[in-house]
């Protein structure tokens, strides 16, 4: 077996050293009845690299890769070009096969990278401090809600109706076990976010208001007004961003007054990967909230010779020290995805992220204009970044399925996201990025015209 270096000669020599007659003697503590008598049922014997690769390639080919279609899906996961050097760096064994940097003297590579990552995320979000990452945007969203409860000592959570429904569902699921009271809503299908309706739901028992920016329908809500209303009642504003590229074009949530900013970092460096692993981003505007944050934090310090170095710090918040009083049970972060994000963001820089954002927006505007010319189709949004909602005047799920058969991945139907809810059936979310060509837009437009005719 190619991954197992011991030879039978080694094994007998080692058993001699141990003083055991055979390998079974080392499993003496496992009761006889607990031991499997034969091989695992149905599992074939070991296979060559070539055979496994062939099997996996066969499965891979049953999927339609985004690159092979006119592709318009978003709703929390976006297809962007990832420079080749990003994948090269994250495959370096010193990063790929390292452990959590608990031994800082021999982990400065990971630690300095995390410090750069935290600094980049804090700036992108307009915040003072970002952590070393969470599992993904949805779990970061729940952790932010839990943190707001610790800070405000209140239990009432107001979710915007235009928060990604899967994020809302994660929050609702977790809240069932923590006695938080969750006030959610369905998205109002209208050209602008329902800010006044949201603000009216904030009261003096509200711990936090959770608002997606841009929202699930692609609209850009007025975070500043919501922040003001939340703060007036002593509540925190949690801003959720699922498309970090947008922040190259629009003002960051922190600058608009959000107290905790969380989101999905997948767009930068990570790729689609069928939903995971992704990268949860988590930042706070006010440094006084740092000790209530979940997850790992990397900080700067000096070594015994006075050289600058980095360590994981403030770890008394975490499970391995605080046990049942920890701020979260999270143990890992998304280390390698954070590295991919940081390398990609370094390649972009200020100039690149702004260019990237404006190119996304330019193509999205082109697509919105072109698609709006299709008879019966309207663009819902007054504002958007790179994703908007189309009303088709027809069942969007059927349209999506039929177009998929023609090799066009037209977007995400709202009914897929909100099953069992009326009034959303004819709405389609369409995302456009720099990877979308003008030909792709024309392909979608023509296919839609054909489908709706």
């Amino acid at each position: 077996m190619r991954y197992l270096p011991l030879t039978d000669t080694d094994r007998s020599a080692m058993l001699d050293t141990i003083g055991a007659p055979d390998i079974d003697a080392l499993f003496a503590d496992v009761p006889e009845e607990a031991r499997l008598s034969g091989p695992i049922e149905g599992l074939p014997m070991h296979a060559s690299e070539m055979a496994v690769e062939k099997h996996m390639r066969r499965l891979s080919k049953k999927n339609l890769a985004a690159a092979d279609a006119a592709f318009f899906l978003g709703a929390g996961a976006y297809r962007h070009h990832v420079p080749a050097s990003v994948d090269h760096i994250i495959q370096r064994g010193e990063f790929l096969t390292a452990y959590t940097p608990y031994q800082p003297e021999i982990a400065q590579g990971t630690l300095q990278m995390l410090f750069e990552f935290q600094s980049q995320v804090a700036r992108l979000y307009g915040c003072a401090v970002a952590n070393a990452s969470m599992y993904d945007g949805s779990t970061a969203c729940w952790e932010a809600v839990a943190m707001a409860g610790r800070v405000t000592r209140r239990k009432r959570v107001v979710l915007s109706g235009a928060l990604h429904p899967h994020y809302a569902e994660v929050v609702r699921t977790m809240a069932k076990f923590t006695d938080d009271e969750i006030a959610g809503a369905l998205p109002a299908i209208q050209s602008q976010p329902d800010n006044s309706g949201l603000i009216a739901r904030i009261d003096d028992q509200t711990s936090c208001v959770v608002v997606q920016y841009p929202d699930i329908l692609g609209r850009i809500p007025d975070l500043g007004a919501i922040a003001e209303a939340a703060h007036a009642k002593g509540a925190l504003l949690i801003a959720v961003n699922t498309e970090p590229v947008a922040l190259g074009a629009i003002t960051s949530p922190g600058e608009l007054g959000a107290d905790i900013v969380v989101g999905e970092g997948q767009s930068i460096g990570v790729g689609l990967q069928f939903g995971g692993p992704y990268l949860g981003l988590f930042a706070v505007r006010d440094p006084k909230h740092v000790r209530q944050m979940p997850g790992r934090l990397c900080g700067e310090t000096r070594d015994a010779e006075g050289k600058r170095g980095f360590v994981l710090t403030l770890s008394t918040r975490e499970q391995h020290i605080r046990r049942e009083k920890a701020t979260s049970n999270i143990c890992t972060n998304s280390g390698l995805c954070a590295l991919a994000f940081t390398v990609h963001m370094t390649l972009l820089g200020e100039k690149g992220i702004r260019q990237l954002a404006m190119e996304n927006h330019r193509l999205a505007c082109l697509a919105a204009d072109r698609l709006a010319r299709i008879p019966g189709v309207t663009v819902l949004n007054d504002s958007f970044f790179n994703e908007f909602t189309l009303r088709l005047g027809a069942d969007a799920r059927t349209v999506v399925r039929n177009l998929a058969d023609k090799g066009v991945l037209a977007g995400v139907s709202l009914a897929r996201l909100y099953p069992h809810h009326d009034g959303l059936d004819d709405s389609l979310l369409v995302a456009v990025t720099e990877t979308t060509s003008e030909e792709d837009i024309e392909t979608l437009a023509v296919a839609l015209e054909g489908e709706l005719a």
Partner: protein
Amino acid sequence: MSAPNQSGWKPGTPVEGHNAMSGPDTATGNRALMLEEPLLFEIGHIETTGVDLPEPRGGTNRLGGFERTAQIGLPGLSEPETVRHYTRLSRQNYAIDLGLFPLGSCTMKHNPRLNEKVARMPGFADVHPLQPQSTVHGAYEVMNELAHWLIALTGMHGVAMSPKAGAHGELCGILCIRAALEARGDAREVILVPESAHGTNPATAAFAGYKVEDIPATPEGRVDLAALKARLGPDVAGVMITNPNTCGLFERDMKAISDAVHAAGGFVYCDGANFNAIVGKVRPGDLGVDAMHINLHKTFSTPHGGGGPGSGPVVLSEALSPYGPLPFTARDRDGKVHLVEEENAAEFGHTDAFGRMTAFHGQMGMFTRALAYILSHGADGLKQVAEDAVLNANYILRSLEDVLDAPFGPSGPCMHEALFSDKGFAEGLSTLDLAKGLIDEGYHPMTMYFPLVVHGAMLVEPTETESKAALDQFIFALRSVAERAKAGDESLKTAPHYAPRRRLDETQAARKPVLAWSDPDLV
């Protein structure tokens, strides 16, 4: 027994000021291949970019009046500078690719590169989680195939694939237990956890709303069955047990523990962190376990990546399976695999799910790697994995117990990890000092001060992917450092001497936290 220094070079008696690393100071601070590297924020510039994108064209936008005007403050580097910056940083890391990584309970085994190749196939890497079913059959099949083998390997009934890491999986399992109890109208308040448990166990139970109580251990490092039985009652929701446990020992009474907990109306959660010791040899389902997370990054070798991403599917007993979270995959009568979500849960008879733990379907990128790993090893290879992991750990235990105290050594063999204590170290020298001394010898230290039940604990897990020669070299190094610790070698207190950094001031880091680059002038 001794192993030669690998280069053939024999270290002489070190003479103060005359070892190989103490030449004259260099002007740059570099030492040949040991290169200092500034922060991105010190070398990057907001005008620099490593990508070619079109200049924004002027004109109108539809950003709703929220367009950014102020600078973000993100420095950029060109591609050659970026590659060099992160390559230089990478060289300051220890990694499995560089040497044996003996972190107990972390299972730092070789990461096969086939798995990296497979995960990057366009049909896996470049598909969106919400693509229509007709375009992602292969992805559903990967999830389903992996789920099938995880169930087969553990002898369980079902599996929740979506948890993103071990701790997330623990939470999933405990929430299943809570949902099952609530479904029968049985509100229970307490989860019992052994003293030797990983910190995530009590943190998870508390996060799920339970009170946590300790289960005592026997003098030989196992759960005290009599004490456990005495504590069981109508208020106990369940127990969380790690098996093999964090002392590296198999819980011989596991079945009796499960039976007692079940008889008292509770459930058994097993922390699967140490599954590597028994994979292919023992099925937790046969021991009465109701839920167990599987760290794909441990037993099934998906890369640790410097701290994640992990992946923590949870296998479930028949009693708990109905409560598993959405989404997951299921095969219909025609053999077609479906994703079961909120929408079609009823069609698949899964209406009691406790909810959803994450936005999408789980760590697909880890599923492909883990599946390739399982298929590569097969039934014979996985059994050999467990046997070689246990053989390697016992070889280390027996090769070092004359120089390091092995508190549970006399009572029998260990499983996949060997536990030592600091007994016999000279006054003033600690486990930490030994660990830092091991760094100078070219190794990552073992897990230290865990489990808490052993003084100055050192938990060594070599894994099955180490050759005998690599083990002999490691034993030679650890023996040498242990002898210095017992002899009172003061130089250990300031070790490491040869790493990219000396010991770092963690007190300063925590008292005055500097968590982000804050000088705005330098970009």
